[in-house]
């Protein structure tokens, strides 16, 4: 299969590869996909007190399009607030990377990973005060 130049670019120079501290209250982690299906994405965001995504990292097991989709997602996430981030749609990823129909599931997975990371962050924020209360 022929890949678009943008997919190849992200694949050869993936942006924001790495891991953030999963236990930090400022970090939200989304892990989606399954080894059995041939792709697993881990996408993480670090959110400032002002609610802005200051950092984003990913690691992906999957085909070139899955790697490119998650790499692109981390680029787009940085600097956005959570509201804006949650509005990123898989169709925008498809368009930007010129993904063929058989690779649309890769973009869906990236959108799911973003949502999962945001949910994880919100859950941590929601539960943090409760924990403080219990401790006090």
């Amino acid at each position: 299969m022929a890949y678009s130049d943008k997919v190849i670019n992200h694949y050869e120079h993936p942006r924001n590869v790495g891991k953030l501290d999963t236990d930090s209250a400022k970090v939200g982690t989304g892990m989606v996909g399954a080894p059995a299906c041939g792709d697993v994405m881990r996408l993480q965001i670090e959110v400032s007190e002002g609610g802005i995504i200051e950092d984003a990292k990913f690691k992906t097991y999957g085909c070139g399009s899955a790697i490119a989709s998650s790499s692109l997602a981390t680029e787009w996430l940085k600097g956005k607030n959570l509201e804006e981030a949650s509005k990123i749609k898989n169709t925008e990823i498809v368009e930007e990377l010129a993904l063929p129909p058989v690779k649309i599931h890769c973009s869906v997975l990236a959108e799911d990973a973003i949502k999962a990371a945001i949910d994880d962050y919100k859950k941590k924020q929601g539960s943090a005060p409760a924990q403080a209360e219990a401790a006090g």
Partner: protein
Amino acid sequence: MPSTYFDYSATTPVDPRVAKVMMNYLTLDGVFGNPASRSHSYGWEAEAAIEKARKQVADLLNCDPREIVWTSGATESDNLCLKGTAHFYHKKGKHIITSKIEHKAILDTCRQLEREGYEVTYLDPSSEGIITPDQVAAAIREDTILVSLMHVNNEIGVITDIKAIGEVTSAAKVVFHVDAAQSPCKAEIDLQDMKVDLMSFSAHKAYGPKGIGVAFVRRKPRARLEAQMHGGGHERGMRSGTLPTHQIVGMGEAFAIAKQEMAADLKKMTKLRDRFWNEIKDMEEIYLNGSMEQRVPHNLNVSFNYIEGESLMMSLKDMAVSSGSACTSISLEPSYVLRALGRNDELAHSSIRFTFGRYTTEAEVDQAVKDIKVAVNKLRELSPLWDMYKDGVDISAIEWAAH
């Protein structure tokens, strides 16, 4: 720069010696006649060329030229042998035995026969990819009419013990068909010594042209078939259609070269394979798929754990290889052959098949090994599964959400 070809099991380039012969059978100044024309020399010369090629093929297989039926390739031969046998013997029984690791040309034909009311048993290979004579013996029933097993597996290169299985089928008086598309140049075939009734071959896996193949149909004891292609009664009524002279002389020449050069080819491929494998076998978390002992020497099918096969192929863009991963095929399942060996999904998704051939060089192998090491390291750095493995997390214990 074209990539280096490591996909000789998918197809081979035509040997220049073969191409040269073929070119004499196309144009006005060559032998272009219809081999079925009985009334002039154009036809006679074409017929003579066909009969020479038939003998060349028969010589490699050690059989009678009259046992060779020309077809369009191994797919057609498989269809002819399976459907032809099933339809001929349907009154005797409707049970067929094959295995889970056959080529789709066998498996899809069996599915069609199931739709027609036949019953098919699919034998499970061992974790090494081996089907044993005992398994076949145990599966044969009163109503079994046909056993079909491949000689050399196209994905993992494992060789089935056809000679021993032939003893079982012949004692049970069951027709034995063997898909030997992958065998010429790689595994010895002696039809005087193997009790096989029907065998399928293809030219393009052995440095011949695409679109031509052979069905071996034994005369003693006689294998009976119902034709699947009706028409002018060519090939003793078993396969009608004007014979493609240029293709046929190409297959004949390719098989004649195979006979002369097989021993040298095998030696060379074993050397290349060992050179390749010795360099990569000590990498962390890599697995050879299929038996190393009972295997043709030009195939290495390797799983690089925690890396997905298609992304690995993308990194190995200077190499033409194939992958058992899902993303590369139309179906979304990873290789059914590796699944049948009991490989888990990750390993099935992470497999790459490297196959060498007549034109592979040591320098190409050395470069490949270097490229593989770089790519594997890069992709493992990118892999969350590799992270988890390194952190001691048991990936199989995680409940993944299906998607």
